[in-house]
């Protein structure tokens, strides 16, 4: 299980929170360390487990990496910006 292996390379992901999710965690961003290789889904699991209030973020939220929508199985690299997006309601 990648997330618990201490021997692997680790990356730091900038995670951003918006709207209701920002309210839930009481912040708009966090730096999250994940063992690599990792997916957006891995980042979400880590966020939900570690950040106070983040457990109320859905298990499968809408997400973006580096300003593009992605699926949760998209991979992330060290330095990526992952955004967790509440249901879009613009226009």
């Amino acid at each position, binding site marked *: 299980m990648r997330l618990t292996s201490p021997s692997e390379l680790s990356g730091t992901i900038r995670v*951003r*929170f*918006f*709207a*209701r999710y*920002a*309210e839930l965690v*009481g*912040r*708009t961003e966090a730096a999250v360390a994940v063992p690599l290789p990792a997916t957006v889904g891995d980042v979400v699991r880590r966020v939900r487990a570690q950040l106070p209030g983040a457990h109320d973020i859905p298990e499968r939220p809408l997400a*973006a990496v580096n*300003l*593009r*929508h992605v699926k949760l199985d998209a991979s992330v690299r060290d330095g990526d910006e992952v*955004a967790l*997006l*509440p*249901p*879009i*309601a*613009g*226009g």
Partner: protein
Amino acid sequence: MTYLTRSPISLDALLAEVASPECGGTCVFLGTVRSGPEEHGVTAIEYSAYEEMVEEELGRIVAELGERWSGARVSLRHRLGVIGVGEASIAIVAAAGHRAQAFEACRYVIEEVKRRVPVWKRELRADGTAVWVDPSGRPSVRLSDRPTHV
């Protein structure tokens, strides 16, 4: 390109951006803050966004438009911040040689905005509460009226 603004949107400026002698049809969409019977006393809506991504995503939508309707010209603005009832939160102008293209291009932009562009709204109610709006247009979660951090 800067598609976001915190000021009232000038439709005249958007029309001027796309005006061309080769365009015979122009379609405009204005989304305005509503306060009908379904809205339970909404006095304004506060719009927030993942601003950097909004700019990128709108740029991608505009590029797609050029591929689908060659010759179509589009300009648009999305407003953020607190917007009062009746004021426009978004204005899209699509001009094309003929009307069918103008309508289709304009409709494409607003449908893609609703689907892809990371903007959120919180209804501000006359009773002092604030409610995040879910994508179906109806509020789903009632939260406190403390200001959002975004």
